[in-house]
């Protein structure tokens, strides 16, 4: 099966993601890594690919994002397509969807997978915009996924319990992080990734950029919160917790 996986390069955990006060955008100058959430989508694609299938990872991001995409290739994806163009800087939901759809239309995959959410944007809804522009059925939050006879079946959690949904292919599916345990790239995978094709597309290749229709006006500090305490476990953390609970009269 031909599967495209939309993945995002995000500031690496611990690199102290921050918003740039001048541009009011996420500061992407530090290390970028493949979003953890998206490794689950890559894993699922590899599981569903089959012997004669292909997994291509598709992303919108700065040129440096190509390095983060290589992790997906090291896991086993076949190639990557990165849309990178100044015209997409500060892209909002609709503009991001437009860029990805432009790239996906060149691929005509039977299945487009998404991760559960991006740790920085955290919209957990991009798939619905992409599916709408592709005019394909969409299923989100899939915690179990099976493909058989040109259709998919997914189980997912909503506010009211679990649902089982069915849809014909081609389709768009966002998977929850509970769907699988992503593999770690093997040494062989990491070496092999270096020679896999990594394509970079400009705005012109995906039907052109445009202007975002949402704007950040200002950044403000969050409301003050009460006093809080932080300790590092030096072997006495349990004692410190008990003391804290006793002090708060919670024991």
């Amino acid at each position: 099966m031909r599967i495209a996986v939309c993945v995002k390069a995000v500031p690496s955990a611990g690199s102290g993601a921050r918003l740039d006060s001048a541009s009011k955008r996420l500061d992407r100058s530090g290390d970028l890594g493949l979003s953890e959430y998206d490794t689950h989508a890559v894993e699922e694609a590899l599981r569903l690919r089959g012997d004669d299938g292909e997994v291509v990872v598709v992303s919108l991001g700065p040129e440096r994002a190509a390095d983060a995409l290589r992790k997906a290739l090291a896991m086993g994806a076949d190639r990557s397509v990165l849309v990178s163009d100044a015209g997409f800087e500060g892209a909002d939901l609709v503009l991001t969807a437009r860029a990805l759809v432009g790239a996906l239309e060149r691929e005509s995959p039977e299945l487009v997978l998404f991760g559960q959410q991006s740790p920085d944007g955290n919209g957990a809804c991009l798939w619905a915009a992409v599916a709408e522009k592709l005019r394909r059925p969409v299923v989100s939050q899939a915690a179990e996924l099976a493909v058989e006879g040109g259709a998919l079946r997914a189980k997912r959690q909503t506010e009211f319990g679990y649902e089982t949904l069915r849809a014909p292919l081609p389709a768009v599916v966002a998977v929850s992080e509970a769907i699988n345990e992503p593999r770690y790239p093997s040494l062989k995978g990491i070496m092999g990734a270096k020679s896999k094709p990594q394509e970079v597309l400009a705005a012109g290749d995906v039907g052109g950029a445009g202007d975002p229709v949402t704007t950040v006006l200002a950044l403000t500090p969050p409301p003050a919160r009460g006093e809080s305490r932080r300790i590092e476990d030096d072997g006495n953390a349990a004692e410190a917790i008990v003391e804290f609970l006793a002090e708060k009269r919670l024991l």
Partner: protein
Amino acid sequence: MKALVFLEHHGDALSRASLGVLAKAQSLGDATGVVLGSGVRAVAESAGGVVWVADDARLDAPLPQPRVDVLAQLVRDEGFDAVLFAQSVLAADVAAGLAARLDAGLNWDLVEVEERDGALVGTRPALGDTVYVETSWSSRPALAVFRSGTFDGDAAGGAEVRDIPVALEEHSTLVELVEQQAEEAASGPSIEDADVIVAAGRGLGGPEGFGAVEALARELGGAVAATRAVVDAGWYPYSTQVGQTGKTVSPKLYVAIGISGAVQHKVGMQRSGTIVAINKDPHAPIFDFADLGVVGDLNEIVPKLTELVRARRS
């Protein structure tokens, strides 16, 4: 401002979160609600004011794409300045689909909205709520999804219902709801009434990790809760899940073990009296809202803590 509010219903009740957004929108100007489903006239009437209703068998399943079709037509016919949603799995997918259909701006996870010089301005916490972002729209309509629990409202009753037509696009009708499974009955003590909750996440490493968590909960006289990540993976029952798609709790003490503190978990427990978090990652977002944050390995700390509490009790 002329706003349309997506009123979500479950069974014969409208969601309190979406009624809260309606009340907020009414305070800003001319706001009407919209209810989409099958056999929903009575539930639509339970709201106040004017409510648009599409009552059609093809809208019975809680799926987003047919709803996008109906809302897009309504927006084109009526010319709303804003379409507002209360966060839910369904609402997020409807809002994003509608944004793509109309090429309209969508801001999500908002905790406030106001009108400033004739334009809407929304407030959105970002990066684990460490910074607040003021955001605006240059499209009409402006689309917004509000964070769970931001506004809660009640059904005023006696709404004037206006019927709207249903015409669906082909691609919107392809997903089929095969089965719905309501929540299974809880076995242990219910987390909704507990004074103490010991909650655990993926940091446990596997379902067997819950043994130590249950032991601590027993000593503290509390109930055990879990994150969606471990519930969806089958490690613990759904009835114990805290968060956006689980329960909202406010115990006196919430001990979060191996939980990163994602906003969808936070909205279910942030009103707890005292929050203690144990996590080995010093950058985990949960430390930004815990009263006591302990950076360390839960496998070391939890058994010791259980012993100490037991010793103190006896």
